[in-house]
């Protein structure tokens, strides 16, 4: 797709590039619409951003689409040098219980501790606390049932951490089951019908 108003795009492209350089969080199309006072359409902005992504394909760093926005990022092959520069140790990866809990929250959000524990079959309080501390999940309210339990949902940081543009980038549970399980009956699939297209 090319830009309809070539002139406008030529003007805004370097501006967007400069904004991306200083941004500390992913810059969304909506952010940019606001910056240009609505004079530039979201479609035009998306086109310019795709062009930029393509232009950076041959550069030493990349422009990526992540967490509902765009940001500059390094390339994996330079990881060792960057870690040395930032004095970073190996990042502690998440434990299996943490990942399990996160995946349940990602697909069923908003969800409660009781619902998570019903699926995992084990107490999940400590895991939830860790995930809250790492800001991968957040509490978005209380469920209007007895006891008013906290409702958990995934965060922007979750998307960044796993390199996702949005929650619906995750494969559906149905897909996951079919890929690996092979034999899945209709009754089982109906279990996951609600979660075929996870929304944020």
């Amino acid at each position, binding site marked *: 797709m090319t830009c309809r108003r070539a002139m406008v795009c030529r003007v805004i492209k370097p501006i967007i590039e400069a904004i991306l350089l200083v941004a500390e969080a992913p810059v969304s199309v909506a952010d940019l619409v606001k910056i240009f006072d609505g004079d530039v359409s979201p479609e035009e902005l998306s086109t310019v951003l795709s062009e930029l992504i393509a232009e950076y394909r041959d550069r030493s760093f990349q422009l990526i689409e992540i967490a509902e926005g765009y940001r500059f990022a390094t390339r994996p092959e330079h*990881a060792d040098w960057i870690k040395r520069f930032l004095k970073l140790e190996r990042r502690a990866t*998440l434990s299996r219980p943490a990942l399990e809990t996160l995946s349940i929250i990602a697909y069923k959000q908003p969800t409660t501790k009781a619902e998570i524990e019903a*699926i995992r079959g084990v107490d999940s309080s400590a895991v939830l606390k860790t995930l809250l501390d790492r800001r991968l999940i957040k509490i978005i309210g209380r469920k209007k049932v007895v006891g008013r339990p906290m409702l958990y949902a995934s965060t922007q940081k979750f998307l960044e951490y*796993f390199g996702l543009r949005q929650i619906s980038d995750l494969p559906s549970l149905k897909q996951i089951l079919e890929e690996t399980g092979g034999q899945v009956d209709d009754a089982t699939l109906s279990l996951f019908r609600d979660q075929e297209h996870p929304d944020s």
Partner: protein
Amino acid sequence: MTYSVKLDLYEGPLDLLLCLIRKNEIDIYDIPIAEIAEQYLDHLALMQMLNLDVAGDFFVMAATLILIKSRMLLPTSPESEETLDQDGGEDPRADLVRQLLEYEAYRKAAQELRDRELAYEDVFWKEQLATSSLLGEEELLEVSLFDLMEAFQSVLRRLGARQPHEIFPEEITVIEKITFILDQLEHSGRISFSSLFSGSASKLEIIATLLALLELIKLRTVRALQSREFGEIYISKAA
């Protein structure tokens, strides 16, 4: 002296069951319950022998397995079997199978996340500086009376640690404290629950402050908010 070791051998009862099912190459829709229950109990016994910290959840599952096993042994009359088969769900194992399949799906989803985690481990970007104003972008949650009482308890605990010095009668009224809270809010917009009590010397004063706060919340003049469970509670003017 005994030493207890906590190994992440199995995440939980479902994990152990899935391991057994896979190891025995069993069709998950047709689990030989007697056999699996036996192996499951053997594992539990082994875990206890190794002095592993076996959580109660493991025993709940053991009981469930035995219950299913006993139901399987009960004879069903031919005609009831037919009607039950039409319902499709009356196999005593059905609930367990559903639970196992659901758990397995999320476990695979978790693996998917692990792959992504590793793929992005070596990609870096400019991190948000930690200087953004306190609570700036956090989403706030209404706190319940229970949360307030919890926070109040910790204020009292802190006070309890202090040495008493001189005792003299004080006249502190709730009205005074209401004015105090409103003044503070006027001044700084949002104040933390604990800072309300930082200047308080006596239990009486603290209680007056709490009553004042509760009154203001009741009148919907102020709101109490918190960004996460057990986090600091903040007081702000009601919009």
